[in-house]
């Protein structure tokens, strides 16, 4: 088990980021992340200084090219593997522009670009990366199916903007509901839980941990431990925690599931996790953005997909304090039922108020309950 001292990480990381040569923005998306001890989180596009300049006409040229590339996709990716269609890609292109340009220039430049007019062609525009890199970045998005969120280095999730990069799972919209469960079920039923210690296991970008810490902070003085086995995830989560100034409330620990939590056994007020749950056999058929770019460690849940979920259920009873809350994300109805059956058969006295909760697409997605 390894504890990261967040403060020292912060300064180290920051210094490195700012010195990082910009061409890394367009680095090979398929580079394999080494498991070296010090992982340097990448600075997302929207946080980079706007230190590159181009003319409006050059930018317009790029924009037209990028738009054409996006429309050439049509719905071919949809048919191929349920990937994005060109409408979605156009929207992503708009977001890319938003991240690329300084906020105070959005209202002037974005309409000009979209109208494609040739007025003010030689006006200089400040960019956060060189124009050449944009060509390369958009080609990666379309031709290599590199996820948009890796291209811009961030994902908007709930009211957060989280840094993400290769090696870290891009948090999903479905997972946002876990925070609603914390607020609307756990803390509503038992407000005292807000003062306790919570854990987010397999934290990835830190999404669940950060949103939980923020909601606890509005009520009481609860704290969160976020863990992950992946060194990239640990570094990125720590970076995001730092960005939201939550280093006093969230501790990021590296290690496998409960292993880094031995010191808090039986003390947890809440246990949250979105563990890998895709059955191994499904991995090869995944949408290109996922299967070819996101880390297997974050997706593969063993033959039935439930290896980690069962491991978490098994540990939950001993980790949670009486009245403590748990919520896990699953692959869908089948896994939810499995888990609930398992709990009812093997641990009838450990948990109560077990419930299955659907996501907004109507898929049974979450299992939650309270420790007796």
């Amino acid at each position, binding site marked *: 088990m390894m504890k990261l001292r967040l403060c020292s990480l912060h300064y180290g990381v920051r210094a490195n980021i700012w010195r990082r040569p910009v061409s890394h923005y367009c680095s090979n998306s398929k580079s394999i992340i080494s498991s070296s001890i010090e992982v340097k989180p990448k600075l997302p596009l929207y946080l980079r200084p706007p230190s590159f300049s181009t003319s409006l006409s050059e930018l317009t040229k790029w924009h037209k090219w990028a738009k054409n590339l996006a429309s050439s996709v049509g719905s071919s990716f949809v048919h191929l593997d349920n990937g994005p269609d060109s409408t979605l890609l156009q929207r*992503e292109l708009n977001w890319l522009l938003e991240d690329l340009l300084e906020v105070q220039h959005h209202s002037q430049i974005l309409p000009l670009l979209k109208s494609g007019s040739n007025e003010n062609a030689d006006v200089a525009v400040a960019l956060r990366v060189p124009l050449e890199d944009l060509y390369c970045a958009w080609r990666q998005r379309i031709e290599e199916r590199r996820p948009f969120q890796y291209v811009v280095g961030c994902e908007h999730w709930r009211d957060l903007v989280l840094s993400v990069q290769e090696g870290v799972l*891009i948090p999903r919209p479905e997972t946002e509901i876990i925070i609603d469960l914390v607020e609307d079920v756990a803390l509503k039923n038992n407000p005292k839980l807000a003062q306790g210690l919570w854990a987010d296991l397999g934290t990835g970008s830190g999404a669940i941990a950060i949103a939980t810490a923020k909601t606890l902070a509005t009520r009481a003085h609860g704290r969160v431990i976020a863990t992950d086995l992946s060194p990239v995830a640990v570094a990125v989560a720590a970076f995001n925690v730092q960005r939201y100034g939550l280093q006093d409330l969230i501790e990021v620990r590296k290690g496998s599931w409960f292993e880094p939590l031995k010191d808090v056994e039986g003390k947890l007020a809440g246990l949250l996790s979105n563990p890998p749950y895709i059955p191994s056999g499904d991995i090869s058929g995944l949408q290109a953005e996922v299967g070819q770019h996101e880390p297997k460690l974050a997706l593969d849940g063993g033959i039935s997909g439930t290896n980690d979920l069962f491991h978490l259920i098994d540990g939950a009873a001993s980790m949670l304090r009486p009245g403590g809350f748990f919520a896990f994300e699953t692959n869908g109805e089948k896994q939810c039922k499995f888990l609930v059956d398992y709990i009812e058969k093997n641990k009838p006295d450990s948990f109560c108020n077990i419930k299955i909760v659907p996501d*907004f697409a109507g898929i049974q997605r979450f299992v939650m309950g309270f420790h007796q």
Partner: protein
Amino acid sequence: MPSFILKRVKKGCLPLFQCPRISLCSSKLVPNFPDSNQSSKVLESGLSSVLLNSTKNLSGSISTLANSSRFCSQNLQSLHSNPKIGIFAREFGTQAAVEPCTSDGLTVDGIVGSNWTILEEGEGDWKSHAAAIAQSIQVIKKRLQWKKLMVRLDLLSAELNKSDLWNDPVHASKISREHGSLMGKMKEVKQFEQELLDHIDMIKLAKEENDSELESESMEALLRMRRDSKDKELEALLAGEHDSCSCYIEVQAGAGGTESMDWAAMVMQMYKTWAQRRGYRVTIVDEMPGEIAGIKRATIKVDGEYAFGYAKAEIGVHRLVRISPFDSGKRRHTSFAAVAVIPILGDGSTHVQINESDLRIERFRSGGAGGQHANTTDSAVRIVHIPTGITATCQNERSQHQNKASAMAVVQSRLDQLEMARQAQMNAQHTQSLTEISWGNQIRTYVLHPYRMVKDLRTNYEVSDPDSVLEGDLDGFILSYLSTSLDKDEDEQ
């Protein structure tokens, strides 16, 4: 009314005043008004000082009739020997039982009744200024629906004087808020009126005593009032309860496929530029693109003071006639787009309480296993309010949470609007039915072929340059609609 509103209105309207095209087009309008008396009044006082120039010869009929009416009786007059106090002495005094007047009994209506010649600002004597100001005051009162306002104020005062009022604090604060706001409007007009009469007294006094300094000071003051009065007229167009709110503008394509969807997109674009030019913040909440071109439906949020007050003039069906760019046969096509406008009530207002269990929240486009299987930047959600069937979607935010929050805000505003309409019906008060736009409710036609023209079917206001209108030059249409609709209201009283 606070002066910042005045400033904003003034600033916002400047482009209109300065736009020579509008003034030209507008002067052509005069014959289109069904009632020429009314039309000259509307144009003269309602639209702008530029219009004033172009129409003054129509309306400036010279009359030598002496002021023969409406002298205040002596005993009332003595009440006002000090004009600065008096009128508002009663606690919840509302009804203007006593009309303010000058020391020799001249009232605002009296001034208008004497038909003094109104000359341009630079010319003329005090009577010209006084007549212009008095006329403005009448327009302002009309627009504020003065008689209704007084009745309403009396009603509210009676409520406020009840001893058990605060047993229901929500109701009480609503009543006292409305009372305060109406009272403010009423006082402002009264003060303006009084100011006019004071200056007239001053000028008469100065003349009697040959005090040229006092005379020119008072003339200056009258001139200032005359200019202010134009802004106050505009301000009075936007005196509705929710006029100062931000709003949503929704556009939906009518039947006719790509043709209409393209038209709907043009209409939406028109509002976006209109709003941006006015300095409002525009955000796209929801946009459903057509398969080939245009939009099926879209919602934008327009943030800023009086966005609703102006935009509400656009509610209804907009019709386009043109040679279709999508028709290889180059035939003429007619397309329709419906526009709805929903106010976003401020924090001070009472919102309809929404029951969580009445909501169904759906991922707008789903399919597949979701979760870790899928990486999509599409996090659109649709919210259905089950009891009313109201739905809202938002897909333009970058997170599902934000999409949900935006869609929720739309649902809230729609429910508030529904409730407003319901209450308005109960009080049998005037309200526009904002909820369902019927395709029969055409308000404006845009013709690109065989001739070029945009004409409002409600006011007959028209311009011959559709491009400028489609580029957001809508103020002429909006202001003429607002002024005619308010004038109509008062007549119906």
